[in-house]
């Protein structure tokens, strides 16, 4: 056990230099409680001390942006007095240690971020990345994470409508669990995490505080050594029933005008919520920690400050409103306690049993927290990464294609999303698995709706973080266009390895640059998100994996497109270039076992034109289906159109354009491509609209029949495709 305060500080993750700065600023030794506060507020997870300088590059403004980064969640204007509120967050470390509770509390945390803003959550997405299907821990993690998400989201009555499920050996010892929530709020009733009015009352709301999750934020700011299970006590335990009551109580308090400011207690619990609310309001606070409702006896002030017990909020109300606040909380059988007041001192003063235990300037822990310019270096093996490996002897395209269909990415996700209630709230118009994005109708603004999608691509980002991140945004925007939506805004989870490694810092710099360029190119402002560093175990970092969640507007939910072939006799058209490359492709990975090559960055002009073409022709009712061509290439995408067809329709296609190099053109990949179907009579209209926008147009054939026939290369029975599609996934 550390004895002195310095040892305690170092043991909690503060550096020697940070300790010296504390001493120099305070001109005294901090108390044990203060050490806890510094350790919690200055760690990477809360302070963004490594990423902050880079995140400034991201475009955060736009005509629709009402609330950008820095609040609990971003908000964009939908018109008609309504706004969409959304955010994505990672819960990687806890989910690897304890998958069920780790994932469940991740969902709980992101839901609180949304209803804190005054929004009612209407949809969740979950982007999940696990190790190789054959890794011994993968099944355990998949089944735990999926059931944890189901446990929490289902009970909350928020539909989980989509996400991703990716398997790659890079995540063998660091799974990624990125959770996204979308809510809807009245534009004139947005709430902020601010304590602006001195003299107002600070109220603790929700479940009582226990010893669970202490040091959770610092756990998420360190790499795993070999045995991550030793860190299990840092994972919190979720109670979705308590949170459902908390949600309803908070929305009722907001409806009744009883809240001046509100923030959820997430990472670093009471510490983070008090300091951040005071910092945003430019105020201070006096807090009596003895008044915090506790569920464990004998907790020290430091433990109370660091507890990450779930389902708790901090709110600020006027002295006259306190009685009414406590009344609403009592009706929902929730704890409520006035624990302090807002001051104008700019200091955080906390007492415990009559003794002062914390007395710190608020700014020192927030705006003035350390910022690091960590060294970066271009990875020495980059030229090797960019060189294509020697290919094994050629084989027939159909053989390679069949092998590609064995990849887990071709398999139906139904065993996942059937465990999620994806229909509650009667808003889900396009369900998970039906299309490139989910569509939720706006019950208060018919016939409009919102489309949501999440995307990421670790392998491509490892090969070229800037191009890879650019293409991730491009793909998400294209996914939205394929249901007929236009993007409103974006949130991101930046999952990276250990930033103290210069190559990881380079990956981060490059990826943020790519994201920034793409968001500017596609007019999709970033409204918030989070950074998850230290996804590293035993010295091995994950692929750089920026994941984005993008929200789009659908003008009429009665006119959306789905991915699968809809009607026999429809024409099948490839929109976008017929060129493709093997670099970084799924096919190359399966064929050679290597992630190699240099991915091409999407052409922003062509890509934007394609997206506009898709959204316009879906809105006008011209297209019957639309699906982007991404991982796996053109044949793979056509197979996906077959297996997601409601009537399981095949197709008869002429792919002779690929004769010069079928392997590359049919199995390779390229951005900015989509397969669409439409009535034969509409072909001329679509061709003209494509030409007008400079989007390549290639008529491939016709929908129908019991085969996927791609002359002269492949002819596969629909039954065979379905059998591959319904093969089981690990852990499900």
């Amino acid at each position: 056990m550390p004895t002195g305060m310095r040892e305690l500080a170092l043991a909690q993750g503060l550096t020697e230099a940070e300790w010296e700065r504390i001493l120099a600023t305070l001109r005294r030794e901090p108390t044990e409680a203060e050490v806890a506060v510094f350790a919690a507020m200055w760690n990477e997870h809360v302070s963004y001390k490594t990423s902050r300088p880079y995140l400034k590059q991201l475009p955060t403004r736009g005509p629709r942006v009402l609330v950008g980064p820095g609040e609990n969640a971003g908000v964009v204007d939908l018109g008609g007095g309504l706004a969409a509120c959304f955010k994505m967050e990672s819960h990687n470390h806890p989910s690897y240690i304890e998958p069920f509770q780790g994932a469940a509390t991740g969902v709980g945390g992101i839901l609180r971020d949304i209803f804190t803003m005054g929004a009612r959550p209407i949809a969740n997405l979950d982007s999940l990345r696990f190790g190789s299907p054959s890794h011994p821990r993968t099944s355990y993690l998949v089944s735990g994470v999926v059931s944890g998400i189901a446990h929490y989201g289902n009970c909350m009555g928020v539909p989980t409508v989509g996400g991703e499920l990716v398997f790659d050996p890079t995540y063998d010892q660091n799974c990624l669990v990125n959770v996204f929530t979308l809510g809807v709020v009245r534009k004139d009733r947005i709430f902020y995490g601010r304590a602006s009015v001195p003299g107002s009352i600070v109220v603790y709301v929700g479940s009582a505080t226990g010893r669970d999750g202490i040091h959770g934020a610092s756990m998420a700011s360190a790499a795993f050594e070999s045995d991550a299970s030793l860190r299990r006590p840092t994972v919190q335990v979720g109670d979705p029933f308590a949170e459902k009551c908390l949600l309803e109580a908070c929305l009722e308090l907001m409806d009744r005008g009883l809240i001046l400011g509100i923030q959820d207690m997430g990472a670093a619990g009471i510490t983070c919520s008090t300091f951040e609310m005071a910092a945003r309001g430019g105020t201070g606070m006096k807090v009596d920690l003895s008044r915090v409702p506790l569920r464990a006896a004998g907790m020290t002030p430091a433990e109370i400050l660091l507890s990450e017990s779930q389902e708790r909020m901090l709110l600020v109300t006027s002295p006259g409103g306190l009685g009414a606040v406590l009344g609403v909380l009592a009706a929902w059988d929730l704890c409520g306690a006035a624990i302090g007041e807002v001051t104008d001192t700019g200091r955080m003063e906390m007492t415990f049993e009559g003794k002062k235990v914390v007395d710190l300037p608020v700014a020192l822990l927030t705006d003035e927290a350390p910022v690091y310019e960590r060294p970066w270096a271009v990875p020495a093996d980059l030229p090797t990464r960019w060189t294509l490996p020697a290919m094994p002897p050629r084989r027939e395209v159909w053989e390679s294609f069949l092998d590609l269909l064995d990849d887990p990415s071709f398999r139906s996700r139904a065993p996942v999303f059937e465990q999620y209630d994806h229909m509650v709230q009667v808003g889900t118009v396009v369900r998970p698995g039906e299309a490139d994005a989910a569509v939720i109708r706006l019950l208060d603004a018919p016939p409009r709706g919102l489309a949501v999608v999440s995307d990421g691509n670790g392998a491509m980002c490892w090969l070229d973080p800037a191009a890879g991140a650019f293409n991730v945004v491009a793909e998400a925007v294209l996914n939205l266009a394929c249901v007929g939506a236009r993007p409103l805004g974006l949130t991101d989870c930046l999952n990276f390895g250990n930033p103290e490694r210069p190559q990881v810092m380079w990956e981060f710099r490059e990826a943020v640059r790519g994201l920034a360029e793409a968001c500017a190119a596609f007019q999709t402002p970033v409204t918030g998100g989070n950074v998850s560093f230290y996804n590293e175990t035993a010295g091995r970092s994950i692929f750089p994996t920026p994941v984005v969640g993008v929200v789009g507007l659908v003008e009429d939910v009665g006119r959306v497109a789905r991915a699968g072939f809809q009607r026999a006799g429809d024409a099948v058209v490839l929109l976008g270039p017929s060129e493709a490359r093997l670099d970084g492709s799924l096919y190359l990975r399966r064929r050679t076992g290597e992630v190699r090559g240099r991915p091409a960055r999407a052409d922003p002009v062509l890509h934007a034109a394609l997206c506009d073409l898709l959204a316009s022709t879906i809105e006008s009712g011209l297209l019957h289906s639309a699906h982007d061509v991404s991982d796996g290439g053109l044949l793979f995408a056509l197979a996906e159109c077959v297996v997601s067809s409601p009537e399981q329709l095949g197709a008869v296609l002429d792919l002779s354009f690929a004769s010069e190099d079928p392997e590359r053109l049919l199995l390779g990949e390229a951005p900015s491509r989509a397969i669409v179907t439409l009535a034969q009579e509409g072909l001329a209209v679509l061709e003209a609209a494509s030409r007008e926008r400079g989007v390549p147009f290639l008529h491939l054939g016709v929908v129908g029949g019991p085969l996927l026939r791609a002359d002269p290369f492949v002819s596969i029975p629909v039954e065979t495709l379905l059998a591959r599609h319904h093969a089981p996934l690990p852990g499900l």
Partner: protein
Amino acid sequence: MRFAIIVFPGSNCDRDCAHVLGTVLRQEVRFVFHKERALPPTDCVVLPGGFSYGDYLRSGAIARFSPIMGDVVRFAQAGGLVFGICNGFQILLEAGLLPGAMRPNDSGRFVCRDVFLRVENADTALTRACRPGQVLSIPIAHAEGRYHAPPDLLDPMTRAGQVLFRYVDRKGRTRESANPNGSVEHIAGVMNRQGNCFGMMPHPERASERVLGSEDGRLLFESLVRSLRRG
């Protein structure tokens, strides 16, 4: 007609039912918080789906002790129409207003998907807008939906027409593969002997508008409205 929707802590389909009854069918809808002791004047009580009390202990086991349930039982005993959906069905079983009991799904998992139901009795206040034997497409979303009743209870129920719906395949045939939770005799919904209390696991409120993929569920709400109009 006046509908009262009970809001238990953890109810999460209350607003969905209000949307269908109020916005789609233009009926008068009132939410009644579970801590109330008396129902407002009403023609039909709806117990919505959700996770009342977090489904802790056993689905519906705690909700039946909510203060409002005393008056719900009195209302039912006086012949008032009571309709429980999913968790609401579980609560009605726990409260003894409907016969039988509910167990966890045989898969051990929560399951959310479309299922087909066959209308076994089209001569009830909940089903009179349906044809006998009509196959309805309505989604389920539950972890504890395996209906159970012992033969000495089930046989008289069946003879009395108390079995309202069975899980079937697209063509209306009972098949093990079409039974999503292992319910005894594929039962998806039942009523009491008097014919005024109904419970079903599938969610008709999620299948009441074309934009959601099915309008079959609306037939049930329309049946209720029609029954009430008759008086």
